[in-house]
Structures are given as C-alpha cells and as structure tokens.
C-alpha cells in the first residue's frame, strides 16, 4: 500500500489510553491487544498499520522509518536521544523523573548532604548524566535494568534517579524525592522523512488528535 501509515504503539501501561485515543480518532482498534502474540495489526479501511512494541524501542522504530509515527512516554524519548520529531503532548501517562535519597540520610532540615564520590543508581543513565552536568554535580552513575529502589538499601548506591507516577514505590522503600528533574507524559513522535512525505495524512491525524484532547475532560 503506497500511502499506508505505520504507527508504533507501546506495550504496558500506556497501551490502553493510546488505543482509546486512536479509536476516538476513528480508527479500527478492535483487534488491537498488547497481550496477543501478533505484533502487527492492519486497519485496512483507514490504510493504517499498527505495530506493538516495547516503549523503549519505539523511538528506534520511528527514527529509522520502520514506523512513521509512534506514541511513547517522554522518558523513553529522552533516554533514546534519537533524531526524530516530537509533535504533540498527549497529556496521559503523566510521571516525573526524580532524584531520590533514603529518608534517614537527610539532615534535620530535610537537606541532602552532597559529598564527593556519590553513586546514583538508575535505569536512565543518559538523563542522569545530563542532569548532573547541568547542576554541576559529580557522581558515579550505575545503570540498572529495574527495581532501582533496591540499590540504596543494599549499599549499591547512595541516590537513585527514577520515574515516579504515584510515589508509592518511593514511600514503601523509605525514599524521599529531592528534586523533580523532568516532567514526562506520552508524546506523539514522527519520523523526519515521513513528516515530509506523508505530510497530509499526518497533519490530518494530528488535527483529529488535537480536537480529541480538547474535548476530553482533564484527567490525571
């Protein structure tokens, strides 16, 4: 199909709101599921193909043009550092990157005593490095693949940089957020070439999504 639009959708917690949004924009999303083994779905009538993949891989699919568009959290975009265009804030999937420390490390005024040789455990080394550089702080970054909150408890790191949506995990592990680094939410991203070559279709979808976001009551 010459004028087919390929959209990459994230598995996990952003999946359902993404599907709801697309279905509100008139796409046939009935077959879509992130549990099924099939990862490619067609909406023949609208000439759209959906691919379902890991959120962290979506910027890669879009950068190389395997997908024209993608819907993914800002967190994945920052960490991937890819060359693509970010068109729209979709407002759902709100969360924050925070720097957090164990409560018992704080002074009685609630200040964190910065010192040399600190270690920060995180799943997001690029973001953590940029943050440290911007603040002029020095620390060693330890890349982990999950359950970062464990690191301070077992002495792997003094601090963590992690993504927080409700703050429950931090609380349960007796960690206190020191600073919000970036606020993140779901974004619509597009491939550089597709943005030009499929401009008409992409702008039409963009317009529909914008109308939809306006109509929807503010959610959090």
């Amino acid at each position, binding site marked *: 199909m010459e004028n087919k639009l390929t959209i990459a959708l994230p598995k996990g917690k952003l999946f359902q709101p993404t599907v709801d949004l697309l279905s509100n924009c008139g796409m046939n999303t009935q077959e879509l599921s992130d549990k099924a083994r099939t990862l490619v779905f067609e909406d023949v009538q609208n000439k759209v193909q959906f691919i379902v993949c890991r959120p962290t891989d979506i910027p*890669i699919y*879009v*950068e*190389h*043009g395997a997908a024209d568009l993608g819907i993914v959290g*800002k967190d994945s975009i920052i960490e991937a550092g*890819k*060359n*693509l*265009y*970010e*068109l*729209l*804030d979709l407002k759902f999937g709100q969360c924050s990157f925070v720097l957090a420390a164990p409560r018992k490390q704080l002074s009685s005024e609630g200040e964190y005593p910065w010192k040399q040789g600190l270690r920060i455990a995180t799943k997001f080394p690029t973001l953590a490095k940029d943050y440290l550089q911007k603040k002029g702080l020095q620390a060693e970054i330890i890349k982990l693949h999950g359950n970062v909150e464990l690191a301070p408890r077992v002495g792997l790191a003094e601090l963590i940089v992690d993504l927080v949506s409700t703050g429950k995990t931090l609380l349960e592990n007796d960690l206190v957020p020191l600073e919000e680094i970036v606020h993140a939410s779901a*974004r619509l991203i597009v*491939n*550089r*070439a597709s*943005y*030009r*070559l499929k*401009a008409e279709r992409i*702008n039409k979808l963009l317009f529909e999504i914008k109308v939809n976001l306006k109509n929807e009551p503010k959610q959090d």
Partner: protein
Amino acid sequence: MCLLNGNGNNCKIPAGMRDWLPPEAGEKRALINSLLKNIALWGYQELSTPLLEYYQVLSKGEATSGPDNLYKLIERDGSILALRPEMTIPIARIIGCKMPGNPPWRLMYGEEVFRYELVQAGRQRGFSQVGVELIGEKGPEADSEVLAMAISSLKCIGLDKFTVSLGHMGVLNGLLDSLSWEKPLLDELRNLILEKDFVGLHQLLDSAGLDDYQKVGMLDLLTQPLSATDLKELISRFSGEIQAALLEISNVIEVLDIYGLSKYIQVDLSTLRSQDYYTGMVFEIYTAGIGYPIGGGGRYDNLLCQFGHDYPATGFALGIERLLLSLPQKSGQMKPILLVGDITKDIERPELINKANSLRTEGKPIILELKQLTKEQAEKLAIEIEADLLFWQGRKENGE
C-alpha cells in the same frame, strides 16, 4: 580462504567505517559518476581537496555550541589537523586563497567526508557526498539553479518519489530578533525548532510569557506546512526580515515552476541545517524508506568573508550511501568473460593474449586464463568466479 573468526583484532575496522566489496563498490562509483556527469551538464567543474585540513580552518563551519564532530590528529609541529566533515569549508578556503579567474564559480565534487558522531545504529562516520557550490551569485536565480540541479540529478539516477523541504534562515532570525531574550534562551529555542520538538517549543513559549497572539502566530509559522497560496498570504502578514525571506522563497519557487520542478518543493519554515553558516534559503531532501534526509543545502553568504572574500554563495550536497539505499535498481557492472584456451587444441599464448586484448578494446571485461584447460575444467572455473565462459579452440573452430 579467510575464516570468519580468523585473526581477531586484525579483522576489525573502526566504528562507523565500512568496507566496500563488489558489487557495491562499483555501484557506488557508478552513482557518483552519473551524478557528476549530470551536474557537469550545467557547466560545473570538478575539484578535489585533501582529506586532512587544519582544525582551525575546518572548525569555522562547525556549530559554535557543543562538542564538534571532527576526527582530530596532531601534526609533527604540534598543530591540530582534522578530517574534513564536509566540502563547503575546504572549497571556501580555496576560493579565499588560490582560485584562479573571477566569480561566479560553478564547482562540483564527489568526495569522502568524515564525522566523528556518537555511535548510533545505522549512522556511518565516513561517507561520500556529491555536491556543488555556486560562488559569487546571489538572488533567486542562483538559488533556483542549485535546487533545479539537485532535483534533476536525483531524477536522472532514477529516483522519483522525493520531497524537497524548503525554508529560509531569515524567518528564524527575524523571529529571534523580535524576541528580546537572553542568548541561552534563544539558543534553546533554535535547538527546539531544529529538532522539531514542538512540545518543548510550546512549553518554552509559555514559560517565556509570550501572549497568545504572538505564540500562535509563531507556532503556526513554524509548524504548519505551507502551500503556495498560504505563502502569498503570509508575505502580506509580515514585514522586515521575515517578509524578505518569504518573498525570496516565493521567487525561488517561481523560477522552479518554469523548470517544471516546483511539484517537488514543500515549503516548511522549520527546515534548518545544523551548520551555523547558512544565511538564506535552506533545504533538505527526503525520500520514502530513509529516515534521514538524503541531501540538503542552502545559501551561505557570510562564510567566504572569513576567508578574505565577500562572495555570496549557495550549494547542496547529496549523501551517496543513503541514495544507494533508496535506489531500486542499481547500475550493475558487466559480468566478466573468462577466456580459456582448449588444452586439446594446444593454443599458443600470443594468440590468446591478442584475443583478450582485442576483446578488451571492444569494451568487454576479460579475465584471461593462460593455463589451458579441458572444457569441463573451464566450465567449472567460470562458475566459481561467476563469469561467462569463452572457450577458445582457435579462430576456425570459434567461427572467425
């Protein structure tokens, strides 16, 4: 025969570099040649410059902020050298100090360039560019010549589905001037537009306290693709630098219309190039299936004064590797012919060598096997080396 896991370190090449084996190496050269041949039809002459230049010279073209993307090494006297990351600066240097004749100069090149970029999947650090510089001419006539040449070169190598997105530095500069902001904030704005981070752009404009009217006007200008009529309407809405820039774009499109090439143009005012030296119209060329631009260029009127001459200039460069990826059929090389003498006929060597030479003068690629073979041996060898077989049994038997 080489084993795949043969010699460990001896088999490695640096990250971002690649080897060119047959037939790709031949396809690449054929592509470069046919592009240059087409550009030569516009009266452009080829030039070539050294791979290595002084860092001081090359860094004039690099973005002033952030680390540069140059491969550097040290000369014996301690000065810093670098591999050229593009051809515009070396050509500007030549114009500045040793170019004979008078402007305008129409120059073209097909050369390898090197960029020490972060290793990302699919991003090469060494690649080839075919490009042109038209130096000493200004105005929409020169800009449209360069654009028409870029488009027609792509068409002549068989690419048809591509889009040229055309913008103008004057629009951005005019917008930036209209804001009385501090430099870091302006740099951030410029970056957000370059990366097309429209969400970040929104947030920045919000936090900078622009009123809604200004904000919407600016976002519309930068984020909406424009048709010819939109452009006309926009020209009347603006004044000063922005209006002048929009007028220039419209004049360039007018000339391209006469060439019959304006259908390839898409006006997109957020088109920016990462080099700092562009001053006027800028463009990027996109084709289906390749996530990056396959080429781009624009007007750079202030670069040459850094090399002592105040000439206006405009040009483009095409990325050869990306073009190779996007071309459906490649101009393949001719299959070689294996010439072997029949062992049973006892053919003399001079006869075989003469035969091979006369075939080569006819333009046929000949691999000559001076050892005489039986028919079966010859056929087997031809299959092994992927050649057609000419089994020579003497003039008579071969019907000459």
